[in-house]
């Protein structure tokens, strides 16, 4: 009987052959934490171990409210800086660097075959380059600081195969919303999800990150795209250490296989207040919007800026819409600047902000008012997510966000192709 990707990675870490359902205790290759590092540091201190098990295991990235909007966040950041200095954590990125998951991939921490945990639910993103990435809690991160170890249940694996080539105007985000709408927010709970099929094979690493990132929205423990030449071309120049590509065996056991044809897919949106409340744009077209949030670890990379700039070029953001733009990282910011995309967006009337999470989880920089609609390229639309339970959040692709920003209502981006 063949092994799945996750059985192989966790088996190698555990030093024995494992199958889905077993519980293993392992030392991860990297452990990522962000603004929550200050809280984790307090819990670590309460354990009573003086030194970190291994400072080089940790990557700390300030991104959730960067720069800090008030004194509480500022104190939080100060505590993080003091902690990383005291304990010699070299892999520290301050507020200028960008959204943690983007930085992990850009900086070559996320590599094929590695086991990476993060105290953030979207740590599944690293599977876009063939790593096992999963989200854990703060206490667990504190224990990794003290002991290096964490327990993990070896997950069953679901395979999601995207057949066909998506039509113009339909992106990885639409494809993923389609899958979540079909599979449901709990459909992959406790499971690893492997994404495959022609549509995925044609995708860039950036697009694959959309899939792996939002695997969390189906309840998945991790998302995974089998590394190929596209992956290797991306990771080779960035890799911080040696790595080995790990793939599922052809006769591996899958608990479920979903085959989804994307060749006739339309642009989609996730409507309030659930990510699997997915409808075609055509069905909700005309819904008035007040804010466009173009950012987050899901959809704010260079290819997204290219699409948005193409649509906004020579046009104006609707006067009654605030379009807030957050590049996923400082690198994306610079690349978009040099390519002229930021100029196009600014001329169109968009507000260009710095690379961080922005209003995604309601900390700062664009909290919607009561009764307002925020159209977002991010990954969650739960009630209150962006800081106001009286607001509504719709999730969409960057193209749909740009088209809707111009019209002031949810609009089909294919009208702008």
């Amino acid at each position: 009987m063949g092994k799945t990707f996750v059985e192989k990675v966790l088996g190698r870490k555990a030093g024995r052959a494992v199958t889905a359902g077993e519980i293993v205790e392992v030392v991860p290759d990297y452990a990522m934490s962000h603004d929550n590092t200050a809280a984790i540091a307090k819990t670590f201190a309460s354990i009573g171990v003086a030194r970190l098990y291994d400072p080089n295991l940790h990557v700390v990235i300030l991104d959730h409210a960067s720069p800090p909007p008030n004194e509480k966040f500022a104190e939080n950041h100060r505590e993080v800086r003091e902690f990383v200095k005291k304990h010699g954590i070299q892999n520290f990125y301050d507020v200028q660097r960008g959204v943690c998951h983007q930085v992990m991939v850009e900086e070559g921490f996320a590599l094929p075959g590695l086991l990476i945990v993060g105290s953030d639910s979207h740590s599944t993103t690293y599977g876009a380059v063939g790593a096992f990435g999963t989200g854990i809690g703060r206490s667990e991160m504190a224990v990794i600081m003290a002991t290096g170890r964490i327990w993990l249940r070896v997950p069953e694996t679901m395979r999601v195969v995207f057949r066909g080539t998506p039509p113009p105007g339909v992106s990885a985000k639409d494809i993923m919303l389609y899958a979540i709408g079909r599979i449901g927010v709990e459909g992959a709970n406790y499971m690893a999800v492997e994404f495959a099929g022609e549509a995925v094979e044609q995708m860039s690493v950036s697009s694959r990150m959309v899939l792996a990132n939002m695997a969390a929205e189906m309840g998945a423990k991790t998302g995974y795209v089998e590394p190929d030449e596209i992956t290797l071309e991306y990771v080779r120049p960035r890799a911080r250490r040696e790595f080995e590509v790990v793939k599922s065996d052809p006769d591996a056991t899958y608990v479920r296989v979903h085959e989804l044809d994307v060749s006739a897919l339309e642009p989609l949106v996730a409507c309030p207040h659930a990510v699997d409340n997915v409808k075609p744009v055509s069905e909700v077209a005309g819904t008035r919007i007040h804010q466009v949030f173009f950012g987050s670890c899901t959809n704010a990379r260079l290819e997204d800026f290219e699409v948005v700039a193409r649509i906004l070029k020579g046009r104006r953001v609707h006067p009654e819409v605030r379009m807030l733009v957050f590049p996923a990282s400082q690198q994306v910011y610079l690349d978009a600047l040099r390519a002229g995309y930021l100029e196009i967006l600014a001329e169109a009337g968009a507000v260009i902000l710095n690379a961080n999470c922005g209003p995604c989880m309601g900390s700062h920089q664009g909290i919607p008012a009561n009764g307002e609609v925020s159209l977002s390229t991010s990954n969650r639309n739960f009630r209150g997510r962006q800081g106001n339970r009286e607001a509504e959040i719709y999730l969409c692709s960057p193209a749909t966000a740009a088209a809707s920003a111009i019209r002031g209502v949810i609009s089909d981006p294919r009208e702008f192709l």
Partner: protein
Amino acid sequence: MKLVRGRVWKYGDDVNTDVIFPGKYTYTVTDPVEMASHAMEDLDPEFAKSVQPGDVVVAGRNFGCGSSREQAAFCLKYAGVGAVVAKSFSRIYFRNAINAGLPVIQAPEAVEAIEAGETVEIDLERGELRCKAGRFSFPRLPEAVLGIFAAGGLIPYTRQRLGLAPREGEGTGTSGESSR
């Protein structure tokens, strides 16, 4: 392990971490009393005002979906919740609850039978829940994680394993103070 007895707060499917503990508080609110005061804020503003020690949260499928924030488990514990009974839990919430020492019980049939506001009794040791509609049994936690739960959470468990002396309140399931 103790007996849980309390009034039921009943909710539906997919109760997510943002409504249990809003993201805007996750980096600024760390005091247990203050955390408890925001519990369930965006789902049921009445909850934090009138929850009593031992009360039981009963919910549908996929309880705790969304963020990895463990405050969504700790805030219920600090609010005095004796247990969460659900048809199913999201994976990170389940981990976080065990690590917080908050009893999480998967019992879909019991959820169907339990009515909002009634008083239920849960025997964690025997794996039995008693409510107006009758008795329901539920599976015990996997052996490998029972130790964490028995110690009162991941932090006291880790201290035990490292041979460090227990702190006040540890091993009784009320250790959350050290894990805020």
